[in-house]
């Protein structure tokens, strides 16, 4: 298709789409005036029913836990796809010299690796108490490890995250999530039903299976981000 034809087609289709979407938007409740019952009910029952404060985490890992399982598997499949496409037998020995030359960047950056990883783990651990959770904390933890490359050198990043360990963590994260769901079936409950003791609200030992699923997600997301960075950096290293 010629460029002009394509632009012309986009003009017509885009205008039609904009018209239809504008019409749909006109039927939405005014901004700030949402009346969805489901969210309102969850906001009032999540704390007494599940002993957690962060309702978004309760939705993600409990009330709609099955959706998150689908999302975990999607994440797993996409990361496996990246590995399948990019991973190949490479010469591990010869790499370009990539050490950061600025002492200042090296000192500050490498000094931040520890704190960044700790903050990431903190965000994962407190996911059902404060804003955070496995997904957000996983990315934060992984970015702490990637700092090893950004402020140091690639070989230290690889040494800190061996491929075998990352692959294992990636599979375990997804596996544990599904296993928690199946475990509920074994004790006679519904798939992914929250069957564990709920603990005291406001402590890390609250939420029953929410805490387990949250940790499994944190592990999987950390491994996924580290693995994606591995595979893309391998392309140039």
């Amino acid at each position, binding site marked *: 298709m010629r460029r002009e034809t394509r632009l012309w087609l986009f003009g017509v289709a885009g205008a039609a789409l904009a018209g239809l979407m504008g019409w749909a*938007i006109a039927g939405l409740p005014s901004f700030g005036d949402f009346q969805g019952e*489901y*969210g309102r009910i969850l906001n009032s029952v999540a704390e007494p029913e599940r002993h957690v404060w962060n309702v978004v985490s309760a939705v*993600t890992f409990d009330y709609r836990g099955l959706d998150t399982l689908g999302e975990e598997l*999607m994440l797993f499949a*996409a*990361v496996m796809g990246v590995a399948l496409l990019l991973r190949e037998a490479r010469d591990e020995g010869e790499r370009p010299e990539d050490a950061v030359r600025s002492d200042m960047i090296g000192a500050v950056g490498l000094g931040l690796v520890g704190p960044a990883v700790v903050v990431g783990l903190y965000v994962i651990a407190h996911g059902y108490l404060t804003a955070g959770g496995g997904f957000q904390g996983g990315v934060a933890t992984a970015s702490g490890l990637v700092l090893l490359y950004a402020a140091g050198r690639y070989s230290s990043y690889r040494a800190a995250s061996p491929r075998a360990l990352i692959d294992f963590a990636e599979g375990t994260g997804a596996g544990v999530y599904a296993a928690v769901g199946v475990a509920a079936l074994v004790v006679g409950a519904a798939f992914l039903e929250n069957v564990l003791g709920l603990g005291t609200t406001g402590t890390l030992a609250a939420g029953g299976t929410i805490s387990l699923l949250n940790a499994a997600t944190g592990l999987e997301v950390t491994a996924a981000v580290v693995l994606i960075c591995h595979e893309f950096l391998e392309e140039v290293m």
Partner: protein
Amino acid sequence: MSYLPYALALWLFLVGLYGVVTSRHLVHLVVCLGVMQSSTYVLLLAIGYRTGKKAPIFASSVPRQVGAVDPVVQALTLTDVVVSVVVTALILALVIEIWKRSGQVDPDTLRREEA
């Protein structure tokens, strides 16, 4: 009555789509796809917003009677962001493979080479 956030989502979607349609570089195309995807975050979060309400996190110090915005759309947005990130990585991996095999990153030239 305000519809501005919804209109913003619509604009982001269309401007991203325009970028995808006219793109001359596959990496640029993936970025435009990201812009399109971000329209869904804006739309979801805008729909669930309630004026004057707090975040749906009820720590002990937060007064319960104020109420909170809708937690369901926030959980959906979380899913949306995560899937978007890993799918972007997957598409970029495909771009690298395309470049390795054909030496091309312009979608137009790529099509001509195949023919």
